[in-house]
């Protein structure tokens, strides 16, 4: 509270207006308002003031959007308003990639150079950006264009070719997603005009027979802006059923359905909900994790953009079953369209009584707040996401206690991702036992697969568990141009590579586990023989080094060591020998897996290890002979 930033310039009127727009007008002189004589004898603060801490991210967004960066003066003003120590607020502002704490042009283009976009020519796009707008990350004005650009991790547009997002600050701020992205589009995108139409069909599979679609049943059929359109397709019928069954009845259906979470960790959903609903501590919270940031993943974006009311209905059911009156949807900051549609849906649902003090007249209160992420892969980890909602750095917490015991604001909290919640609707529609009969014994229901990379028709596909990898790739038109398949990355950067010999693996939790892989978030990134594997692996290593939150040593150091090691290996200058480097990689992997706080560190080396196993790197031609190299580039 007491150590002020060394502020030369106090917040400008425009900055103060941006803060007031998010927080309301300031109160007393102590709270950032006009100082009066009464302030000399009285001040209030303490618990009540500090309880506003969770507004830190929204207010940082407000300043970032209006001004283009968060100046020390504005940060100081925010700290006065929210009684946050400036050092802590700076720690938060500098944690997230979409906040800037140095002066910046009003337009910043985030160019995705992550896995799927790399395969689709991201480096070429970056080269074009450099020619047009100067070096990456240019400070304000230095390139003379008023536009800065920077490379970005996955923007979740992997089905549409190389992607970009423009952050445009000002009185009328905008974030615009562009995919496929052409640097020539930047100027027209900055003009207040219609956003470029997306060209690729969202769910190519739906072009044929829709009857097998379950989670995607309404995608492309309904108007996502219309509650009536949603209701015409059976919307809010499942909430009625849930209320009829009661909270325990809903949880029993989930148990019967044997539903496992689709976020990556595959935890039984009913267990989570039951732990919260039976917890005597009040209040309870429910949270929808819509921060999918796993490279190659875009399923939740499609669901939110095309069927937003379904998510609201499912979260309302979750709130009802868990005894929560407040729910949060945490949408990643790179999904402006999904956020807009969710906000629109929440507003209309509230107007129509589907949210509020007496939901549909069923006698329970429930409301939803949409929160925007600010560019942090780690925020997808559930306890990191909870910290982020609370206005903190998105650093994972130690577990136990689990969120069901001590979650959001220290209260019992159930948290699930978007796809899992949509499964709940399906379970209520057909009944838990019927759901359990689809898929396999231990992998029930359907699964969304994010097909990207070298396939003819990238996009979102839905199949019952048990479909083989080959079937999924063939459904997407097979390898692009009929080229030979080199490998498939299953589960994203946190997943692993499998080779052509795994094509007949049934895509179930247990099936992929048997080959040492994971379904993760449903990523199926197809790689043909033209893909530069070493380049891809270095990008994965850079990704983890960038996205490690830095909280625990095995991950903070391990991800750096992995990147250095892969760099040496791929340049053919191992320390000692390639074999020795690979042994070291195994060591790093073991320490990171055993000793990291969260899944990021635990999975950070998995992809590299699987690439070694497949012989994609580390084999002949990559420095297999004993050398006396010291790890430095040869002259």
């Amino acid at each position, binding site marked *: *509270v007491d150590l002020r930033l060394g502020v030369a310039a106090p917040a400008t009127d425009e900055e103060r207006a941006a803060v007031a727009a998010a927080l309301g007008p300031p109160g007393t002189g102590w709270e950032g308002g006009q100082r009066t004589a009464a302030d*000399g004898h*009285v*001040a209030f603060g*303490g*618990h009540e003031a500090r309880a506003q801490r969770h507004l830190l991210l929204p207010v940082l967004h407000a300043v970032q959007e209006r001004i283009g960066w968060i100046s020390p003066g504005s940060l100081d003003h925010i700290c006065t308003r929210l009684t946050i120590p400036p050092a802590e607020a700076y720690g938060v502002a500098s944690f997230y990639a979409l906040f800037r704490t140095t002066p910046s042009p009003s337009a910043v283009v985030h160019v995705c150079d992550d896995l799927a976009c790399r395969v689709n020519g991201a480096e070429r796009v970056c080269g074009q950006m450099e020619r047009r707008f100067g070096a990456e990350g240019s400070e304000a004005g230095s390139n003379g264009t008023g536009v800065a650009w920077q490379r970005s991790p996955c923007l979740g547009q992997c089905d549409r070719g190389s992607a970009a997002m423009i952050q445009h600050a000002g009185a009328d701020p905008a974030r615009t997603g562009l995919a496929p992205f052409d640097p020539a589009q930047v100027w027209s995108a900055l003009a207040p005009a219609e956003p470029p139409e997306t060209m690729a069909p969202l769910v190519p599979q739906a072009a044929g027979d829709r009857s097998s679609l379950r989670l995607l049943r309404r995608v492309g059929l309904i108007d996502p802006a219309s509650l009536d359109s949603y209701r015409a397709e059976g919307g809010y019928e499942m909430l009625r059923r849930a209320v009829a069954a009661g909270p325990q009845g809903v949880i029993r259906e989930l148990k019967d359905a044997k539903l496992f979470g689709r976020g990556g960790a595959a935890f039984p959903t009913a267990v989570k909900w039951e732990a919260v609903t039976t917890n005597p501590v009040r209040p309870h919270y429910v949270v929808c994790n819509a921060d999918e940031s796993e490279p190659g993943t875009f399923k939740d974006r499609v669901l939110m953009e095309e069927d937003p009311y379904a998510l609201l209905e499912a979260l309302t059911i979750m709130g009802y079953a868990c005894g929560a009156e407040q729910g949060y949807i945490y949408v990643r900051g790179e999904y402006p369209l999904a956020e807009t549609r969710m906000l629109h849906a929440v507003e209309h649902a509230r107007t129509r009584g589907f949210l509020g003090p007496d939901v549909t007249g069923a006698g329970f209160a429930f409301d939803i707040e949409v929160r925007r992420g600010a560019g942090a892969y780690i925020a997808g980890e559930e306890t990191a996401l909870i910290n982020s909602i609370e206005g903190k750095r998105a650093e994972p917490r130690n577990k136990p206690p689990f969120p069901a015991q001590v979650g959001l604001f220290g209260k019992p909290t159930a948290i699930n991702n978007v796809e899992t919640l949509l499964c709940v609707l399906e379970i209520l529609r057909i009944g838990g036992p019927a759901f359990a009969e689809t898929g396999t014994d231990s992998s029930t229901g359907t699964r969304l697969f994010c097909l990207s990379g070298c396939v003819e028709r990238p996009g979102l596909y839905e199949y019952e568990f048990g479909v083989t990898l080959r079937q999924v790739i063939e459904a997407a038109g097979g390898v692009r141009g009929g080229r030979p398949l080199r490998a498939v990355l299953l589960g994203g950067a946190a997943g692993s590579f499998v080779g052509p010999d795994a094509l007949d693996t049934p895509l179930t939790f247990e099936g992929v586990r048997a080959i040492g892989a994971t379904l993760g978030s449903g990523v199926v990134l197809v790689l043909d023989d033209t893909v530069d594997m070493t380049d891809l692996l270095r990008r994965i290593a850079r990704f983890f080094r960038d996205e490690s939150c830095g909280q625990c040593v095995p991950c903070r150091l391990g991800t750096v060591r992995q990147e250095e090691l892969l760099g040496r290996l791929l340049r053919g200058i191992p320390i000692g020998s390639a074999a020795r480097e690979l042994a070291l990689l195994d060591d790093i992997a073991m320490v990171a897996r055993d000793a990291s706080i969260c899944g990021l560190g635990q999975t950070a080396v998995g992809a590299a290890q699987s690439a070694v196993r497949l012989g994609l790197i580390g084999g002949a031609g990559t420095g297999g002979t004993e050398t006396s190299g010291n790890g430095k580039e040869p002259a």
Partner: protein
Amino acid sequence: VFGAGGGTSSYREAEDADLLVLWGSNAREAHPIFFHHVLKGVRNGARLYAVDPRRTTSAQWADAWLGIDVGSDISLANAIASEIIQAGLVNEAFVSRATTGFDAYAAAVKPYTLDRAERDTGVPGDLIRQLAHDYARAGRAQICWTLGITEHHNAADNVFALINLALLTGHVGRYGSGLVPLRGQNNVQGGGDMGAIPNKLTGFQDVETNMGARARFETAYGAPIPPKRGMHLSLMFEAMERGELTACYIIGENPMRSEADTGRARKLLTGLEHLVVQDMFLTGTAEVADVVLPATATWCETEGTVTSSERRVQRVRKALDPPPGVRDDIEIICEIARRLGTDWGHPSAEEVWNELRTLSPMHGGMSYQRLEELGGIQWPCPDEQHPGELFLHARLWEEDPAKRGAPAPFTPVEQDPPLDKLSPEFPIRLTTGRRLDSYNTGVQSGQYATPLRRRESLNLSPEDASRLGMAEGEVVRVSSRRGSVEAPVHIDETLRAGLAFMTLHFPEQVATNVLTLDTWDPKSGTAEFKATAIRVDKLDAPVPDGAESRRSEAGT
């Protein structure tokens, strides 16, 4: 009131309290370690009130800050009591069983209405009522205070006013509830416990009334103990002034810098026939001494004990050999005794301690071995089976009147504003205090660098600075009825119009105590550092009449 001078509660109780009142204490800066316990309490849900003229960094943590006018503490406390009584929130059972004098107290506080307190303090009556109700209703509540209460001409009355509130509500003698005076040094408590109080022998045994104790000491020491109390510092200065006190032996104290009215202190100390200073530094006082006895650093070059604010006696171990020529305090004192004709031998710290244990019942059970094993023991600890006391005065809650012992008396006190009155000539109230980065006169903290340190300044409210046309950093003349100093202005938003603030950390830069009034409280001997009437002038303005300019020698 309760029979012994110590905080009633342990630090850890602050962590489990429901309500904490910091009254005249900027613990965040002056007692940062204790404040950690406060913060834990806050994190565990405790509500925090701060009563302080300034909105200090401690007050910035509080749920509510009551920015009282300097010296209006008793009016506030009495109004809180009056409101508690009127609202029927008195802890009747406790008051009737464990206290005396309630009726007289109730009558005394009755005139202190919320309206009157609002006039005296400047704090809205509603907020005073809120504090009264919250304090009375809290399950566990503590009042913590420091020099904001005690550096006044009526210091003891201020303390009584707070104790009365605890008696009224039963917030004493129970876990988590209590009265917590914070001590400024690691061993201020120990100094008092060891008998460095004019009327007490070691262990708070009264030299005038406790015949048995005096006899025990006389037997043990083989020498008569004077049956009359001695002088405290303020009385000593007066005795020096009258020429009655002509020689002084000062151990580990720097009155040249720390006393109110520095000019007078210098005159008196340099006028002594003989002055001996025993210290680890060549302090301002030592510089004018006839004899300086270099002593060891008690925290690293000596064996012994210290006692913290929570009455915990802890072992101190020697880690370093002192530099050549420097001796242990015990060794110096014994050597002086030998030269005076009494051979006490060469006792170790432990031997001295063990002798003390036979004389001070509250320390009886504290062998070095137990102190080490238990990580310190909180007095009283009468025998080696006794674990020490987490908090004091639990007896007041006993059902059995015999175990309950003597009831605690209410002590009615009246509001009595600061002696140094504001006037058109001296219109600004100067109060003094500490900063996080510095300690008292800077003898101990001036030796190291810290980026937080800003040196001395006259802190003015933005309103006063703008009215007087004074800019940040501008050197101005600060005058009281006793003298003037020059100091740079620092504009400080935690101050309101008419209130100014200085520290005494940098006496060689600005001798703040040239300004302060050395009128002292007859009950405790503390001077009124906290309330001085000043005027602030630009350097080119004429020196006001009656204020002889006494710039510190080192200048600014």
